[in-house]
């Protein structure tokens, strides 16, 4: 039986169960508020958000692969396109674009034009160092690590800090070799 063709982000998004984005936004706001209350240091909150994103990402990748039917990506460029066009669409319902490729194709920027996490949000003066959407960087990092790519994800532009869009820089650090859980000669 020939393998099923990969599905577009739009098609998957319309076939999954969906919820009101405002519940999602408000729940995320409650999480950030709790973290700020508990941890008090903005840097600590950033790290915790990244860690939470990582935990989500390592499980999210399974759902992504199951629902989207993508075959193995040939190179990192295709991976980034998959994240932006299929991944963001099927989970958050927004489209992202990939730009600013560097010379050897290991570093790119994913630009988000809309971001459901930040509706109704304004950063107060006491939290200026906070990367409010840091959970997204953890999700990408976790998901890619599960498919054997070690990456570093950082925020370049953040609208809550006054920029005009949300831009994440995804840098491929290394490809991890596939480890088999058993030895061939046993």
């Amino acid at each position, binding site marked *: 039986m020939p393998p099923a063709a990969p599905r577009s982000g739009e098609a998957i998004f319309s076939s999954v169960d969906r*919820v009101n984005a405002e519940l999602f936004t408000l729940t995320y706001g409650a999480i950030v508020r709790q973290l700020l209350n508990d941890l008090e240091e903005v840097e600590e909150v950033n790290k*915790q958000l990244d860690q939470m994103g990582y935990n989500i990402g390592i499980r999210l990748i399974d759902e992504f692969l199951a629902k989207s039917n993508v075959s193995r990506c040939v190179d990192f460029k295709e991976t980034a396109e998959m994240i932006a066009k299929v991944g963001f669409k099927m989970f958050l319902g927004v489209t992202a*674009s990939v730009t600013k490729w560097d010379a050897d194709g290991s570093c790119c920027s994913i630009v988000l034009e809309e971001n459901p996490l930040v509706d109704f949000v304004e950063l107060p003066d006491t939290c200026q160092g906070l990367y409010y959407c840091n959970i997204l960087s953890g999700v990408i990092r976790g998901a890619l690590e599960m498919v054997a790519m070690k990456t570093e994800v950082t925020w370049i532009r953040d609208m809550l800090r006054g920029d005009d869009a949300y831009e994440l820089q995804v840098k491929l650090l290394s490809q991890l070799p596939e480890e088999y859980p058993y030895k061939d000669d046993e």
Partner: protein
Amino acid sequence: MIGAGKIKQYANILDKPIGKGKQEVSLSALAFLFSELVQYNQTQVDNISELETRLEDAGYAVGARVLELLCHREKGNRRETRLLGILSFVHSTVWKVLFGKVADSLEKGTEHEDEYMISEKELLVNKFISMPKDMGSFHCGAFVAGIVRGVLDNAGFPAVVTAHFVPVEGQQRPRTTILIKFAEEVGTSLNSLASNIPLLTKVWYAQV
């Protein structure tokens, strides 16, 4: 510059339009987020009732904001001032907007005058959660109970809201009931007035 066009920058966030509320995210995104919320709180507490309290407090903040948002958007800045009104607001409007459907049922308690129950076959947030035996009576619906408490409290009807599992015959997973017990000052009549009425009157005159 790529990506700069779509979102308009507003000098003041209060000038930004609220939006119609039609945007959606996938259920799994919400489920993942909720599971992280629960897991994070598990690391911060020592026992189950503290965990429930923390989830409820998180929900309270959501409820307060949901009330403001929905009063503005759905009801044209009109607030419910009567008990029956606020209960049906929670049961229909709030549930419809947050979970996509009205709640399964709204009942008045038979044992106590000031108790009401909203029942749901399966809470949306609990869909992918399974309870280990050693968690006893813990209910992740404490988050939803917090949302309801936030809505009621900020509307002027202080109450204690809790979530319970009610086993149903013939169904594998128990039904969820959100129990609302209104505070003394609310009174028991369905026509009881909200306790922040003087404030509401002032606001109305200010708009005129």
